[in-house]
């Protein structure tokens, strides 16, 4: 199965500098100074480099702003009322928060998989082909759909019922369908916001294997509540914690590094306590 030429807009290796990045180089350089929802300061002082063909995990207690940081990376926060942001998010050399940047275009290069599996109320085929239709892809859509379903390890289960509703699948299958939908347009980066928290352990394990598989082609950032999950799949891990010193509940990055170092030899006391389960 060879890949057909990429879609008009998103494409493998398409980047602003005109030069492909090598694995491990920084694809998204995210630096959040302050992030507000209305008067609520949700996140401060968080800088994470997302590296190419690596899985970067965000861990931390509830309210530490893991999802908020993730949603910053493809401007999904824009639709939240009262969202304000200071800092920068550089995606392959482009500051995606620059006024000249189209937020919807950003999301075509940086795809997203959500906590709740959210297939559309349409056929399995049309779910995966959605992004291709969105971009007016003129090539062989059936082939792209098949490739995406194969890469998300769903093809064998659905190849005989592509016309059935995406909602007829089980939760784990729905989530893999959503991954297929996200990768059908060959995004550069895949953001996953607690993709397994609504799934049973077997489906979770499948998604985890899939993530490790997918990082050969894509760059992945994942938010997870599950420490073992981060330890199993992530190359880099960022630990966020809640700062209540100013009265509110503001999340900030405590420590970022190789997963092994974060789990085996955390430098910060907060990280050490969290990893060892001293508080949550």
């Amino acid at each position, binding site marked *: 199965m060879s890949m057909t030429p990429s879609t008009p807009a998103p494409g493998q290796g398409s980047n602003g500098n005109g030069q492909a990045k090598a694995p491990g180089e920084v694809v998204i350089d995210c630096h959040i100074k302050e992030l507000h929802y209305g008067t609520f300061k949700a996140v401060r002082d968080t800088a994470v480099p997302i590296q190419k063909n690596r899985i970067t995990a965000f861990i931390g207690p509830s309210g530490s702003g893991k999802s908020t940081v993730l949603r910053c990376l*493809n401007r*999904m926060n824009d*639709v939240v009322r009262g969202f304000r942001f200071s800092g920068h998010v550089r995606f392959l050399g482009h500051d995606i928060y620059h006024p000249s940047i189209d937020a*919807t*275009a*950003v*999301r*075509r*290069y940086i*795809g*997203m998989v*959500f906590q*709740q599996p*959210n*297939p*559309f*109320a*349409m056929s399995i085929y049309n779910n995966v082909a*959605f*992004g291709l*239709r*969105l971009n007016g892809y003129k090539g062989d859509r059936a082939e792209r759909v098949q490739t995406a379903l194969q890469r998300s390890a769903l093809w064998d289960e659905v190849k005989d019922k592509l016309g059935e*509703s995406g*909602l007829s699948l089980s939760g784990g299958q729905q989530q893999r369908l*959503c991954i297929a*939908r*996200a990768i059908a*347009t060959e995004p550069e980066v895949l953001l996953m916001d607690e993709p397994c928290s609504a799934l049973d352990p077997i489906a979770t394990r499948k998604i985890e294997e899939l993530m490790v598989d997918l990082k050969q082609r894509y760059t992945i950032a994942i938010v997870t509540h599950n420490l073992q999950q981060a330890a199993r799949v992530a190359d880099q891990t960022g630990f966020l914690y809640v700062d209540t010193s100013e009265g509110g509940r503001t999340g900030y990055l405590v420590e970022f590094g190789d997963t092994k170092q974060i789990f085996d030899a955390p430098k910060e006391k907060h990280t050490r306590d969290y990893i060892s389960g001293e508080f949550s």
Partner: protein
Amino acid sequence: MLTDETLDSPPAPLEDDPFAQVDFPGLEKSLRRPRTLMNALLSGLVALMTAVALAPLLSVVIMLAWRGGKKLSLSVLTHLPPAPLEAGGGFGNAILGTAVMVGLATLAVVPFGVLIGVFLAEAPLENRLAQAVRFAAKVLTGFPSILAGVFAYGAVVLATGGFSALAGAVALSVLMIPTVVLTSEDAIRMVPARMREAALGMGATHTQTVFMVLLPTALPGILTGVMLAVARACGETAPLVFTALFSNYWITSGGRFDLMQPTASLAVLIYNFAGMPFANQVELAWAAALVLVLLVLAANLTGQALSRRQRQQS
């Protein structure tokens, strides 16, 4: 394990017998307890009220089937109304007239109504224009239908110089639009937020989200609203008396289809014929009433079937 011994020695369960029965007071059914009695009485009352509410509906339906069914035949559905004292005849022109006027009104209302529904569903709640439009639509839902007729009389009949099917369609569309607008808004709002989020996450613009995700997902609900509006429009009489008037002939002039002349409709035919002193006309009115009820019933059932399909999907 039910023995005399266990019954004779109540509450204390036997230590050695795990299946021993323990006595509780009031465990068995009895009408003598006030609570049980009240329950039975109220259940009876509810059944009675249901019967009272259904009585007029059922008697109308039975009466219609009885008196209209006698006259119903293929020739009644295809022939023109008879002259006084003439035998036979039918109301084919009235069926066609109702279909044409309701059809025209539907064609005009659906694009506007659905797009207004999209606006109401997508505009922020505090948007003043959306609030005003929603309020107007709600007021229009209870709008006296005769005023819609008067409006179309002033706007179309006086302007074009005569009663016409077009004026009838305008009057009906005024009555249909609020239903379509409000049910479309509801149907679009009922699309799960996570699907909207999924579309945004794929890089869809707002327009693409509306047309590629929200409208297709809400389609069954929107169709339900349209069918409800069609059902209502089919039965309206007052607005048509002011606008389409009535005609004993087909909706043509000089052999060509013509929307600009007085046009028959089932509702007005029933109104006219039921009051006539001729037995044949009165029987035709009964048959027309039965046909009208069946048409409205068909529209309602279609709407319900469509909305059931939507609920199964989501």
